[in-house]
């Protein structure tokens, strides 16, 4: 047990020696660098999603109202033709 404890102590010392000088500053720089692109990419993703949704809604709306217009025009055309026939018959 004692030898094992000594080995654990050596393990900790060896691991600690792997941390090179200036480590805390490198971590802080990495944390800053990691934070900003994440925020920017997050905002970019939100903007892209919103744009895709808007385009989809606009396309759907244009298609639906286009179909409705065509149906209405066809209906009015039919009514106009019937009215004209009726006028000629009178």
């Amino acid at each position, binding site marked *: 047990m004692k030898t*094992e404890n000594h080995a654990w102590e050596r393990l*900790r010392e*060896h*691991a600690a020696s792997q*941390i090179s000088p200036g*480590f*805390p500053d490198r971590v*802080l720089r990495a944390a800053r660098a990691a*934070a900003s692109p994440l925020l920017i990419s997050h905002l970019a993703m939100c903007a892209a999603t919103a744009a895709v949704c808007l385009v989809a809604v606009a396309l759907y709306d244009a298609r639906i109202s286009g179909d409705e217009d065509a149906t209405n025009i066809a209906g009015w055309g039919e009514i106009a033709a019937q009215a004209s026939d009726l006028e000629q018959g009178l």
Partner: protein
Amino acid sequence: MDESSTTSLGDRVRRAQRGDEVALRELIVAYQHRVAGFTYAITGRSDSVEDIVQMVFVKMARAIARLKAPEQFEPWLFRLARNTCIDHLRRQKLRRIFIPFAPEHENVPEPSGAVDTEELDALRHALAQLRPKDRALLALVQEGRSHAEIAETFKTSVAAVKARLHRAREQLRQHYHSDEN
């Protein structure tokens, strides 16, 4: 840890939570070597220790504001370190599935001079025979974490921690002494 050091740790954590970089730096300086030892015990590779420890502290810096109880900083940090190590080992395993290594590239030994004593080498080899979760368990005990804290980290009961710890210690002892002989 005495009351005054707990208070100063709590103060540092609270300052770091408010975005004070000096406090954040002090926390990194205070824990970098302990987290390195913990990481090495789980991963067994000294050449990746610094990278993993950096990942742990970057995660800490980004998540510390969400830590609800500053006095729970230490168990929280070691939980973060444990999860980072397990993720690292999982990614390594996955990478080996998709990019199979040639037999000569499997189990590449530590760089020469990296392991300078037989007893450390024996412990490292004995730890490598255990499951990563058992290595994490033993490393948490070495870090002085209580059974209750470990149970919280592993999301299990204190009795289960005691049983697993007993088994892990036995296995480690067997492998350690067989490596020594």
